């Protein structure tokens, strides 16, 4: 029987060596060059017109005045397995470095092994809070390579589903943000309302999350009978309840104290860092791909792009809350304008035949067999296609070599890029503000690490 061993000093060193991420970690000041220090505190953003003061880099501070601590990888407020290394002076944050990769499962490599039909099941698991929009981005990229058109009904179904998905994603954000700030009733309400949408997804696609609903060529199934009534109930209920959230949070003094004016971001910094989505719009830049570079049928619906002024936590909150209302506006227009017709392309090389045809048509059987064993071939080329996900610009870069599998699949995850703003936003703030900063950046670790 093994003796229970007490971990002595040497043993602890071994343990830290085993779990070390080496140079990826935040280093002590005596082993950090001044360039590196400047980068970590965000002083490299000293480009033309940027506001960060280069004198703010406190090079002469010594290591024994500060403390480096780990937050995460399994801290409840980091929304997954995000590890933040914080250098603290008392309660104030000097440097921050996110260490990521704890959820890396090689999904881009997996994407190269899956055929184009199977690929949607892979990308849908990246940003697991907005699966429809992931599938949409991937499918549109494949369709662009194939140069096929999607029927009008499929376009509008995609728009309906992605807006519902945006609402559900923002509701989860409202919920987790509420919980991070101690408003646990918001947690319950947000998840309660999201359940309405997930129930509709289940009715439509058969699954609540990771739907594999949007596929190259169209969508997997038509909307269920009576979908208008379901969606109208969702719109009415959630729209009315956004005003309850207003009462619960927007004017509440404790909530405002932790959000208003905390962690501001300027437009120049946001552009330099490549930050997109609600973070960019909160700085006053009216950039929403649905409006600026319309895809699907977003140029035929009426909605407002919500823009903030100060780029602080509260603006990001207000933008997301109002985007829920705007998305519901789009959903209502989808109900009114939904065209009749096919819900997927009738090109037999891309779309599998209906189940009933397989028994009676040899050709349908061959097509079905070829599609699900080999998959369809995509002509050589490369394409970058971007859509507006709830977190920002979601891009999909596909290189096709003429075979049935993507030669290279790269996904530009908005959370991955937005996460770089962490060290800038947290600098100088107090430890308790780090929670609100992570929360309002809204990273989904599945998308950060892929």
């Amino acid at each position, binding site marked *: 029987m093994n003796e229970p061993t007490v971990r002595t000093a040497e043993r602890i060193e071994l343990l830290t060596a085993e779990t070390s991420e080496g140079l990826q970690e935040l280093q002590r000041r005596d082993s950090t060059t001044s360039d590196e220090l400047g980068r970590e505190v965000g002083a490299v953003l000293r480009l033309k017109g940027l506001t960060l003061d280069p004198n703010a880099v406190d090079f002469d501070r010594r290591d024994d005045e500060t403390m480096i601590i780990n937050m995460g990888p399994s801290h409840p407020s980091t929304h997954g397995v995000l590890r933040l290394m914080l250098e603290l002076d008392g309660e104030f944050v000097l440097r921050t470095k996110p260490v990521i990769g704890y959820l890396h499962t090689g999904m881009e490599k997996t994407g190269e092994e899956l055929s184009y039909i199977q690929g949607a099941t892979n990308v849908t698991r990246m940003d697991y809070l907005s699966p429809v929009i992931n599938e949409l981005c991937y499918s549109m990229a494949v369709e662009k390579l194939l140069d096929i058109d999607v029927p009008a009904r499929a376009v509008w179904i995609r728009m309906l589903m992605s807006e519902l998905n945006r609402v559900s994603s923002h509701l989860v954000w409202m919920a987790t943000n509420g919980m991070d700030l101690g408003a646990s009733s918001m947690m319950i309400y947000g998840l309660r309302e999201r359940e309405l949408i997930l129930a509709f997804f289940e009715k439509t696609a058969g699954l609540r999350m990771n739907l594999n609903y949007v596929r190259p060529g169209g969508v997997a199934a038509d909307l269920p009978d009576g979908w208008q009534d379901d969606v109208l109930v969702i719109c009415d209920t959630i729209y009315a309840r956004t005003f309850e959230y207003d009462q619960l949070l927007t004017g509440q003094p404790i909530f405002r104290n932790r959000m208003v004016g905390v962690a501001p971001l300027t437009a120049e910094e946001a*552009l330099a860092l490549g930050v997109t989505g609600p973070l960019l719009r909160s700085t006053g830049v009216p950039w929403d791909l649905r409006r600026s570079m319309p895809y699907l049928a977003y140029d035929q619906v009426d909605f407002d792009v919500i823009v903030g002024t100060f780029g602080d936590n509260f603006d990001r909150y207000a933008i997301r809350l109002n985007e829920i209302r705007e998305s519901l506006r789009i959903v209502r227009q989808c109900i009114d304008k939904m065209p009749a017709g096919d819900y997927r392309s009738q090109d037999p090389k891309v779309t599998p035949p209906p189940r009933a045809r397989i028994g009676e048509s040899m050709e349908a059987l061959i097509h079905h067999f070829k599609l699900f064993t080999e998959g369809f071939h995509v002509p050589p080329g490369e394409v970058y296609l971007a859509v507006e996900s709830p977190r920002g610009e979601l891009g999909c870069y596909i290189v096709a070599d003429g075979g049935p599998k993507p030669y290279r699949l*790269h996904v530009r995850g908005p959370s991955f890029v937005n996460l770089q703003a962490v060290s800038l936003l947290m600098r100088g703030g107090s430890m308790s503000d780090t929670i609100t900063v992570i929360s309002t950046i809204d990273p989904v670790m599945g998308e950060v690490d892929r």
Partner: protein
Amino acid sequence: MTSLAPVAPPGVVTSTGLAADLCCYPTREQYFSLIASLKCDGFEMCVDVCAVDYLNFADRSLPDGVAPTRFEVVTNLLSLSKKQRVRVRVQAGNDRPEVDSLFTLYPGTEALEREAFDLLGVLFTNHPDMTRILMPEEWEGHPLRKDYGVGKVPVQFKEAPGPR
């Protein structure tokens, strides 16, 4: 779209890509200066940097005057004012792929370039922190390279236990 096309510096090969984006094919030496001039030209944001390993697809179609190499770095720039994208594809080299880092132009490329280094082993000159980002620090090899095998867990199919 073409009327809005930025004036690429002389000597840079351009073509129009599939999604009606403009594609530029600079050499490694032209890469940094091209991006810098595009930035001055109104491309405020660098949305994406990624690399591709063309080991098994060397006969891809490229415009005349571009010599294909094994690795290619693809940079996507976005102009908010012109509502336009441009894609810059630079041939990064065969054995030791290396291009200039865009960090001083767009600080937001820091994580993206680290990812390209981590997964494909493309080096970025003057990058401030060229470490791995997604894989563990002691990992060997670069997983998205085409000569890096896909990990497979062998599945053992054992006989079902007998009736006894």
